[in-house]
């Protein structure tokens, strides 16, 4: 019988797969790809009974010890609560399906085994991150996830663009991690422990003063925004598309990028106690959502459009968290994982079939790639929030929350939804409708790729209905996430898990109507504009600014090349010129100079020598008399 205690198995299986494929890869069948998929699949299978166990046992916390330093013991503790359980499921299911898809997509690759090894490691690290209940293990998995993203973006390391993108991704997230680490240290200093439950209880008892708490929260946010590609640390995500598409689907859409959202959710009680930090979350979320959706409008590369859309949707999730509605944000995370993975896989199928990914070069593919066209349509609909799709319902929950807070936020989000609908359908229409640019050369993807595509359409369309059916002991998915699983609230509080008396979310007619309207308007407009296949040449106003990504990228490049490199060049010069040449060599030469001077006293003339003797004696007499006085 699977109990919550055996949750550690989930990350362990993929890690085992990583060890096997990385070391014995060459001799395993299919270079170890099979092993990776089987073990991750086993994990996915294990997820269901684990969920069941959670329903029965309620949230549990386990704290094995890693090593002790003097009094303090550092734990490798892990937690199983509704939040963790749901995201575990998302990661496992997405990872398994995407790995199956990758069998087809990565077919002829030279280092096929290495790809699956790193994906397995990534899955293990992501699961570890989700499960961890100690800031230490969370940070460890956080970094390993970053490493995997670096290795996978730079998978084709013989392509300079990929190597640059990988480096940029790792460094930008690393800058974010600086904040996260300092935040962790602040919390460690204030509470004397690294275990999240203890910190949460300390915060709830008000043991930490406001100032430190806010500072720690904002610093932790820095890490979250780095990993989730939020403004201002979003520059790396679009470039990350250099990696193979399954990677983009798994890491840069479904799982890794949501780690930031998950982190804030896990530490939510801390953020609740620091209102300023919550405001920052909401603000950054909205800015990213708006900004990214505008940028997506002008992109021509289909993967980059989806990348910006991911930033935008994550912005929405952060906005939801910022306004205090954790269940809504996590539910949207789940649905987003489904339809964004679907869109990426479809894009991959398009690229696989046409070897091209620029919108201008694509068109009229509905005939040559029927399955891809249909599945992509489902994904696009969900993303746009077309009524009855999962996106529609999850976005509604968020809009509901925003309406409570302020109408301004609600209206802004509606506008973003419209824009989202517009650029999503711009993508779909230009790619699949209109004249066939490929003149029949495009070929549909093999079954192993289409299988996952179809598999993902199901949740994209149907996940929304979870709102209406009971989810285990709780009324619906939202209630489940809020902690109403029939277990005493004290059990949640004691292990620092999120618990919030759930206000009954009456399906508000206004919200449902306006969001449907926005989605259909956006989709319709896109269909109208691009249906004829006409190449709209006239540029949208301000397109130049959008194309340059608000010049943020340029700013960072200027910052590194001019400021940092110049500073380092100065230090290197200073070290060489002053500290070394003047300082050390200078001192080194002093004795030689003194020696040269004294040497000339030795004139070789005897009377000088005699004089020296007399002078010496005079000196000695002087010293004796002087010291004797």
């Amino acid at each position, binding site marked *: 019988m699977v109990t919550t205690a055996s949750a550690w198995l989930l990350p362990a299986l993929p890690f085992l797969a990583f060890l096997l494929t990385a070391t014995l890869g060459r001799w395993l069948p299919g270079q170890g790809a099979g092993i990776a998929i089987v073990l991750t699949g086993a994990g996915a299978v294990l997820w269901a009974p684990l969920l069941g166990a959670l329903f029965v046992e309620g949230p549990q916390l386990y704290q094995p010890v890693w090593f002790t330093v003097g009094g303090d013991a550092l734990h490798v503790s892990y937690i199983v609560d509704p939040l963790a359980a749901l995201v575990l499921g998302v990661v496992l299911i997405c990872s398994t399906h995407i790995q199956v898809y990758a069998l087809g997509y990565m077919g002829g690759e030279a280092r096929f085994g290495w790809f699956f090894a790193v994906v397995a490691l990534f899955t293990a690290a992501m699961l570890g991150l989700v499960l961890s209940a100690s800031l230490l293990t969370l940070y460890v998995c956080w970094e390993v996830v970053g490493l995997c993203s670096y290795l996978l973006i730079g998978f084709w390391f013989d392509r300079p663009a990929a190597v640059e993108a990988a480096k940029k991704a790792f460094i930008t997230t690393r800058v974010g991690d600086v904040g996260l680490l300092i935040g962790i240290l602040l919390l460690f200093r204030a509470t004397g422990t690294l275990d999240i439950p203890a910190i949460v209880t300390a915060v709830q008892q008000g043991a930490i003063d406001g100032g430190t708490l806010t500072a720690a929260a904002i610093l932790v946010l820095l890490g979250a925004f780095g990993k989730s590609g939020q403004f201002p640390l979003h520059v790396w995500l679009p470039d990350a598309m250099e990696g193979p598409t399954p990677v983009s689907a798994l890491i840069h859409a479904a799982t890794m990028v949501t780690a930031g959202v998950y982190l804030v959710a896990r530490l939510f009680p801390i953020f609740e106690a620091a209102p300023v930090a919550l405001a920052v979350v909401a603000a950054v979320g909205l800015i990213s959502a708006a900004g990214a959706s505008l940028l997506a409008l002008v992109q021509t590369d289909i993967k980059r459009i989806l990348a910006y859309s991911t930033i935008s949707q994550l912005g929405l999730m952060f906005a939801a968290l910022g306004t205090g509605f954790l269940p809504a944000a996590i539910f949207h995370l789940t649905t987003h994982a489904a339809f964004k993975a679907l869109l990426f896989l479809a894009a991959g199928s398009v690229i696989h079939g046409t070897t091209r990914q620029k919108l201008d070069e694509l068109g009229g593919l509905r005939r040559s790639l029927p399955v891809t066209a249909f599945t992509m349509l489902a994904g696009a609909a969900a993303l746009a929030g077309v009524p009855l799709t999962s996106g529609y319902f999850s976005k509604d929950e968020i809009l509901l929350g925003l309406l409570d807070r302020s109408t301004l936020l609600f209206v802004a989000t509606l506008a973003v939804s419209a824009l989202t609908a517009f650029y999503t359908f711009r993508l779909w229409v230009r790619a699949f409708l209109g004249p066939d640019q490929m003149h029949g050369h495009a070929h549909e993807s093999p079954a192993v790729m289409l299988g996952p595509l179809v598999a993902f359409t199901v949740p994209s369309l149907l996940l929304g209905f979870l709102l209406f059916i009971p989810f285990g002991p709780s009324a619906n998915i939202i209630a489940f996430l809020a902690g109403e699983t029939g277990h005493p609230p004290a059990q949640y509080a004691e292990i620092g898990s999120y618990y919030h008396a759930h206000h009954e979310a009456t399906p508000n007619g206004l919200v449902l109507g306006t969001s449907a309207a926005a989605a259909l308007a956006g989709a319709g407009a896109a269909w109208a504009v691009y249906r004829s296949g006409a190449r709209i040449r006239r540029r949208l106003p301000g397109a130049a600014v959008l194309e340059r990504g608000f010049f943020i990228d340029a700013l960072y490049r200027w910052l590194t090349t001019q400021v940092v490199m110049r500073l380092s060049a100065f230090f290197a010069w200073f070290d060489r010129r002053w500290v070394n040449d003047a300082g050390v060599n200078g001192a080194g030469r002093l004795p030689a100079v003194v020696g040269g001077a004294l*040497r*000339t006293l*030795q*004139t*070789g*003339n*005897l*009377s000088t020598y*005699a*004089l020296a003797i*007399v002078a010496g004696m005079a000196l000695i007499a002087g010293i004796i008399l002087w010291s004797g006085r």
Partner: protein
Amino acid sequence: MIPLEAVAGLSAVLFAIGLYGVLARRNAVLILLAVEVMLNAVALNFLGFGAFRGDLTGQVVAIFVICVAAAEVGLALGILLRLHRNRQTVDIDRLDELKW
């Protein structure tokens, strides 16, 4: 009535003159002469102190000083002659091949 200070003073003056001679002369043999003056002053000093103490040690040491001085002159002149035969000079200002 000769006071001790007078004898010692005389010896000091002779010593100083000898020292001047050593510092000022360029001819090695003349330097030797000056050294002889200094040694002579020393002998006088020893005798002076010995005599005024009624102790014969002074006199004995003076004898030894004179012996050593004589030996020194002999050896020094031997070396100077060898130097003269090789370098045709005893002028110490020209003896600066070994320096720095």
